[in-house]
């Protein structure tokens, strides 16, 4: 173990970690280019490297992409990857308040905190945690998805009803194409082009980027730039001081991110959603969330960054990838004749701990790069709207097409973007629509598989048959109850005024 960890801090390893971090910085910051795609694109470059260095570079890219996806989320309200959706909720309002650099530094610090926590958990507890992940079956994933859905309460704006309806629209859009059983084409209207369904990444770009671009067009008479940014000294110190004063918030987000990251298939997106939701729930002054609260940025970013190294735990211990990038890394190992799982743990333990060490170090390198570059990144927001808007459209088209090399995804991206803009004018917040798009691929297959399992017993036995099910279901119910309870006074106020605010 120590030999493996020492190898992670060798100059060669640090160099490849830095290369991975730089590549991740570019990949994550470009909407549509996901960490999975980045890892896959970098795989050929690892063929000539020793396995440990190659893995270190791929892991570093994954960790850094989970940070840099927050850059467009913070600057133009467009998540670089789906995992940064909740980062935009508070990151973009911070930018509007002239605190773009604060948000970037907070995100970089969160990347480090999350990756270090997840990486250390990997080093210390890989074995026992890996076997816990196997306890999760379709009913548990269904309940996890339902638990994540309750975040609507934090992102629905003033109308919970419209939030729920928006999430239902997002989920319904994601059902277009072949059903999970693969037997039925749904909502295709006989068009073969629709059988492949809607890429949720392309759809997510549309839901967030296009309405934002249109809003910038309409606001340009008042604001020539998205937000003013003036370089201020001492921002890094100021942000660090503020964040270090919230140790419980940081630890809670890291524990949630790590816990969810270990579950195969849940990944960084759900980790960020749940972490954000819990940050809102535990906060005393939760009214600031969604309006530029730095805790919103850190909760989301620590959650998704802790999930990145944690998703490698089931891969390395059991051979079950915890996320899509982990699956690509599994493929890389297999190409080298290394079988991820118990055999790898038994025969190449040094390699595993070098990888775990590299993931941990990637968080630190990401923080260094992110902090040093933060003034430069924040200054990008001073680009005139007339230049920025076409570039957002240009990158959105590239991102939507690049996912599956399918022009239909670009049409979906544009169509959903225009639809979301119009719906936002009717008071439907884009957040729940995006949430529905993200969670549907988790909730529906889990529901269908659990229903299949219930044929052998009963629905109640499958969905509430284990203590784990009951715990997650109870948490989901508590979460729903909490949302309704916290919304009650606002509803009274709104009714009293006779007006209901809209987005």
């Amino acid at each position: 173990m120590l030999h493996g960890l020492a190898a992670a801090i060798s100059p060669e390893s640090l160099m490849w970690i830095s290369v991975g971090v730089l590549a991740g910085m570019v990949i994550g910051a470009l909407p549509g280019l996901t960490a999975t795609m980045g890892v896959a694109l970098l795989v050929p470059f690892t063929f000539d490297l020793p396995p440990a260095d190659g893995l270190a570079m791929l892991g570093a890219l994954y960790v850094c992409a989970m940070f840099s996806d927050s850059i467009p989320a913070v600057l133009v309200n467009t998540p670089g990857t789906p995992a940064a959706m909740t980062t935009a909720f508070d990151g973009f309002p911070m930018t509007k308040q002239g605190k773009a650099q604060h948000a970037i530094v907070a995100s970089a610090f969160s990347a480090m905190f999350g990756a270090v926590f997840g990486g250390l958990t990997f080093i210390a507890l890989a074995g026992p945690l890996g076997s816990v992940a196997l306890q999760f079956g379709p009913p548990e994933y269904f309940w996890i998805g339902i638990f994540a859905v309750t975040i609507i309460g934090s992102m629905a704006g003033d109308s919970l009803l419209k939030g729920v309806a928006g999430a239902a629209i997002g989920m319904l859009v994601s059902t277009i194409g072949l059903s999970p059983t693969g037997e039925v084409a749904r909502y295709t209207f006989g068009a073969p082009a629709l059988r492949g369904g809607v890429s949720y990444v392309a759809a997510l770009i549309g839901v967030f980027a296009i309405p934002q671009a249109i809003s910038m067009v309409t606001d340009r008479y008042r604001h020539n730039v998205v937000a003013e940014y003036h370089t201020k000294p001492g921002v890094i110190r100021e942000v660090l001081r503020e964040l270090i004063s919230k140790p419980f918030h940081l630890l809670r987000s890291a524990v949630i991110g790590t816990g969810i990251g270990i579950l195969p298939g849940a990944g960084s997106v759900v980790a960020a959603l749940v972490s954000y939701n819990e940050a809102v729930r535990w906060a005393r002054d939760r009214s600031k969330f969604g309006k530029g609260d730095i805790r919103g940025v850190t909760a989301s970013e620590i959650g998704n960054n802790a999930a990145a190294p944690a998703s490698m735990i089931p891969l390395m211990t059991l051979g079950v990838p915890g996320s899509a990038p982990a699956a690509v890394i599994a493929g890389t190992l297999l190409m080298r004749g290394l079988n991820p799982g118990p055999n790898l743990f038994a025969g190449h333990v040094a390699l595993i701990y070098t990888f775990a060490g590299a993931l941990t170090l990637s968080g630190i390198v990401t923080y260094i790069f992110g902090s040093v570059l933060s003034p430069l990144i924040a200054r990008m927001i001073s680009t005139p709207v007339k230049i920025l808007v076409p570039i957002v459209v240009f990158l959105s088209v590239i991102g939507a097409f690049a996912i599956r090399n399918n022009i239909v995804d670009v049409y979906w991206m544009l169509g959903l973007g225009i639809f979301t803009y119009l719906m936002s004018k009717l008071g439907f917040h884009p957040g729940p629509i995006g949430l529905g798009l993200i969670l549907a691929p988790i909730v529906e297959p889990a529901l269908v598989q659990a229903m299949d399992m219930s044929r052998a017993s009963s629905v109640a036995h499958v969905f509430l048959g284990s203590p784990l099910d009951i715990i997650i279901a109870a948490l989901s119910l508590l979460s729903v109850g909490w949302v309704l309870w916290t919304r009650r006074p606002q509803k009274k106020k709104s009714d009293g005024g006779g007006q209901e605010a809209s987005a």
Partner: protein
Amino acid sequence: MMRSTEEVKDTDEDRNKAAVPVSSAAKDFIGGIVLLAIAAVSFSQMGSKLADWIYPRILTYILVVGGAVLVIRSSVRFVLHRHGGQVDVAGFFRQRVVRDVLLFILGILVYVLLQRIIGFWVSSVLMLTGLPYFLSVKRTPKELVLELIIAILVCAVAYFIFAVFFLVPLPTGILFGV
């Protein structure tokens, strides 16, 4: 009922200022109709096999309930408070902001459709030149030349990153194939 005079006054002021002069009740009513329309389309396509349709069916019921509540609630508000019932449709489309939005959407639709004809990079240069020109407050030939130079630079950097370094495939056109 006592607050209606003040509210109507506020609503009128907001209507003059706002980009989209539609009241809260009218927004709810239109939103509800949209939800019901989506639900209707969903029902028209729905099959009978439980495993394939249970999930869309649940979502569609949510939309029906949500749409119905919004329509009924806003209708009650129209009747009881008599506010939000008047929507100036002609005035809405005469606004500069609305015209800008429509032209912008038209512009990006043309951009995407052009990619299939003249290719991604050529259409991107045109879009990256044309949209900034459209969005400019001062439209002068000098601005146009500057925007063309920026467009070419952006495309050159993007070409290097996507096509050369990451080998990401991009839409090809019939005429130029790039």
